[in-house]
């Protein structure tokens, strides 16, 4: 069988044991590819424990910029004996296996259709480094070294990265470079380098960065002026707060006193986290929390309060595999309904759907504006794939004259001038009413906030008409929200489109690739990437254009489709679900296959 070949277009997988320092070596590899100017995507597939179980790291290089997940592994670096047998089976025919041959492989694991490239990584590590911990770590760098030769990964780029990473720590740098050279030389000596698969420099990453979504989300909150954050640890959202805390330490100290212009509370649970956010929002600070599915479930009651009492709150939901504790280290987009309609009674929450770290930054920042403008919770819906993996995206940008939209808040002077004021009086007709903050004015503007029914003047009432006026106004506000949220992004196609494809969040890359695959067979599909609930007017216009719209989502129950029907009342028969929900990021092929089957008559080019 012919070996796989190709320049700048392959999938590589590292099979390691977690807790052995492999993550940094693998990232080193991916980052080096990025610095070679190539589009690259990296996905960490890790178990829900701390140490000693199999973990994988998948890198896709795609000059065309297809950065969704692709099935079929072209080259696998196997250093975990625990999973080796299964790992070997996972390589695509014609692919390569780079493995640790310090110990011999059982003959029955051999395959004829892939190439075995044995490197005694562990042995080399033991020979060249004294300490056991270093030996463990350096074997990872050894395989990166081998890959520089096997794939034409520029060793100078890797070295530069090591310098950037370790800075002044010369010893560490030297040790890593030694390991790198060991691996590289071993490969050059023992194999025909490079393999058929290889890398060539390009200049496709100009203006781009490579970063994980959670860091970007944290930066969004930092730039948007969030001062109060409360959270409870949960995978995969924890690193949002880790990053936020770290950036605050750097950028939010009072230069004179050294004191903090922020307050972060690790709360006792998610009910308390959202409680803190609601309290701070009520009192005029920008506040947020980050969590994942189980946390959202626990925040349900408070989200209802914030909706009905009209209090700004930002919640980042880094979705993971559900239901229940589910698959905590896998990805899904399955909290749409539970987030959109969180809480009993007629409640609706604003959702935002970033699709890459750049948007995590931007939409998180916008979430604070929206929450204060609309006086309601805004949920930033990312997922494990986006939040915890590094993605290539446009560099973050911020206009220095950008100001925060604090919404309709009356100050002391404005209160002085007002004759009448009602906390829930819709003077502007947009459903958004004027609020006041505690402590503003000695005589004016005090009111009582509650989760019960009230009249326009915030007085408790059980009057049925007053109740109805109030909840009807909330629907007016919802309509206003639809005008304020970020518009969708269209993905045009070259030919005359025969159908639409709707998607959101991390599905973006796979959707683009699938569109191109379909186009090659003459099936032209226009894409629309949703960025919010309520849906922007353009979404309706898009849906109206097509008889069939494929709704692509990473959950079992077609939850986005439900939201589309519920909110826009589009004919449901034209919304065709395209679903993927096994916990891995959606591959382009899944979308392609599911759409393709609807077009049996299409010309196969």
């Amino acid at each position, binding site marked *: 069988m012919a070996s796989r070949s190709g320049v700048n277009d392959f999938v590589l997988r590292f099979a390691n044991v977690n807790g052995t320092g492999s993550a940094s070596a693998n990232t080193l590899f991916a980052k080096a590819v990025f610095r070679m100017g190539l589009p690259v995507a990296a996905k960490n597939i890790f178990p829900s424990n701390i140490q000693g179980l199999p973990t994988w790291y998948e890198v896709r290089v795609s000059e065309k910029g297809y950065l969704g997940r692709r099935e079929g592994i072209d080259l696998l670096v196997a250093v975990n004996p625990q999973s080796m047998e299964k790992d070997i089976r996972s390589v695509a025919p014609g692919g390569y296996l780079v493995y640790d041959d310090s110990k011999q492989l059982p003959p029955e694991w051999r395959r004829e259709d892939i190439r075995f490239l044995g490197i005694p990584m562990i042995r080399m590590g033991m020979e060249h480094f004294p300490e056991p911990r270093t030996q463990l770590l350096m074997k990872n760098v050894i395989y990166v070294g081998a890959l520089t030769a096997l794939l034409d990964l520029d060793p100078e780029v890797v070295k530069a990265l090591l310098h950037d990473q370790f800075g002044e720590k010369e010893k560490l740098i030297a040790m890593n470079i030694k390991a790198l050279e060991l691996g590289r030389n071993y490969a050059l000596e023992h194999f025909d380098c490079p393999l058929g698969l290889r890398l060539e420099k390009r200049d496709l990453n100009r203006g781009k960065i490579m970063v994980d979504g959670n860091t970007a989300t944290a930066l969004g909150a930092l730039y948007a002026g969030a001062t*109060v954050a409360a959270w409870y640890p949960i995978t995969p959202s924890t690193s949002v707060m880790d990053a936020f805390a770290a950036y605050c330490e750097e950028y939010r100290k009072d230069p004179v006193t050294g004191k903090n212009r922020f307050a972060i509370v690790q709360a006792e649970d998610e*009910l308390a986290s959202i409680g803190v956010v*609601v*309290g701070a929002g009520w009192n005029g600070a920008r506040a947020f929390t980050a969590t994942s599915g189980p946390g959202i479930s626990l925040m349900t009651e408070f989200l209802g309060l914030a909706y009905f009492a009209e209090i700004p709150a930002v919640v980042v939901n880094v979705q993971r595999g559900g239901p229940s504790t589910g698959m905590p280290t896998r990805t899904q987009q399955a909290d749409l309904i539970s987030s959109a309609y969180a809480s009993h009674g007629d409640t609706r929450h604003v959702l935002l759907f970033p699709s890459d770290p750049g948007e995590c930054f931007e939409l998180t920042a916008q979430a604070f504006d929206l929450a204060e403008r609309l006086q309601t919770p805004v949920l930033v819906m990312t997922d494990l794939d986006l939040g915890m993996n590094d993605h290539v995206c446009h560099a973050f940008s911020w206009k220095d004259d950008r100001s925060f939209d604090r919404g309709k808040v009356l100050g002391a002077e404005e209160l002085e001038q007002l004759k009448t004021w009602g906390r829930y009086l819709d003077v502007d007709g947009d459903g958004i009413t004027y609020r*006041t*903050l*505690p402590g503003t004015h000695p005589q004016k503007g005090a009111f*009582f*906030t509650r989760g019960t029914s009230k009249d326009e003047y915030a007085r408790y009432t059980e009057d049925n008409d007053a109740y109805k006026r109030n909840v009807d106004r909330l629907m007016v506000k919802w309509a206003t929200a639809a005008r304020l949220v970020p518009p969708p992004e269209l993905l045009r196609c070259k030919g005359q489109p025969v159908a639409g494809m709707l998607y959101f969040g991390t599905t973006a890359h796979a959707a683009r690739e699938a569109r191109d695959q379909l186009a090659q067979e003459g099936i032209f599909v226009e894409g629309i990437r949703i960025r919010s609930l309520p849906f922007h007017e353009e979404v309706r216009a898009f849906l109206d254009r097509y008889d069939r719209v494929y709704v692509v989502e990473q959950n079992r129950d077609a939850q986005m489709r439900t939201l589309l029907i519920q909110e826009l009342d589009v004919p449901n028969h034209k919304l065709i679900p395209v679903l993927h929900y096994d916990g891995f990021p959606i591959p382009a092929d899944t979308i392609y296959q599911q759409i393709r089957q609807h077009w049996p008559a299409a010309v196969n080019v």
Partner: protein
Amino acid sequence: MTYLRPTFRHPDLPVNRLGYTFKDYEGGLSTLCAGCGHDSISGAIVQACFELAIEPHRVAKLSGIGCSSKTPTYFLSQSHGFNTVHGRMPSVATGANLANRDLLYLGVSGDGDSASIGMGQFVHAIRRNLNIVYILMNNGCYGLTKGQDSATADVGSKSKSGSVNKFATIDLASLAIELGATFVARSFSGDKSQLVPLIRAAMSHGGFAFLDVVSPCVTFNNNLGSTKSYQYVREHNHAAGTMDFVPPAEEITVRYPENTARELAMHDGSKIVLHKLPTEWDPMDRLSTMKRLHQASMTGEIVTGLLYIEPDSEDLHATLQTVDTPLNALREHDLCPGSRALDEINAAFR
């Protein structure tokens, strides 16, 4: 339906240091049952605020859900109030406090609200030493849902429906002390002369100030056999941790005999004068108080007064080292690192 009191103001009403009259501290008409202990506590709050000459609008009132939690509508109508969800007032108060350290936070809760559904938040607000006056209106039952036993009901206490509580009581004051609360007192809604100074002292405390106020529910738990009835509490009240509260402006006019009184300086310059120390317990010694409370629980005594105090405790803002300016007053230039910093940040991701 909220009934606002007529705003007519008599010109000769006495005013406090800041020129506010008593009426300025009142709220809407109560919709609680006539005779409910909670209304007396509201009255005591009004009086304490009047006496301390607090600016009403600088108070934020927060509560959970229950008859007790309704009371914030019935006092301080010039203050912002927030009737949150059941049992979760502490977290909302924490957020509010973090947003603006400059207001006085007054939390009101019930025994159902704090000892059952709210236990976790109660414990953790204490652990953080949140700067709040936390008033628990303790009637040993769930008033608003019609009289079920709460977790502070005593074993063997009988409710109006005739049911006898079979579970051990949770003494929230004792628990608070065990957890390291820095100000713990117990009082009785029917004893304003004790309650008002305690509230004033609590308001001067720079941390979590817990007041467990026994407050009979006349409708569901004021019967014979109940240990939270007016009669029972009057008969078993052992008002021991007596004290005077002396605000900064006032001089101590009375001198106390040596060894029977002790002065504590508070955060804001006011003073607490403790009496009768030797015969009871030492309110600055956690263990002595706990011992006293445990003894009392054996005998059915209700020990009231200032139980424990740690006058110079550090509140959550101190722990988190937040700036002096309220966080909600910081603006773009204080908070946003700007595009230059973002360039650096971007560079790290290249």
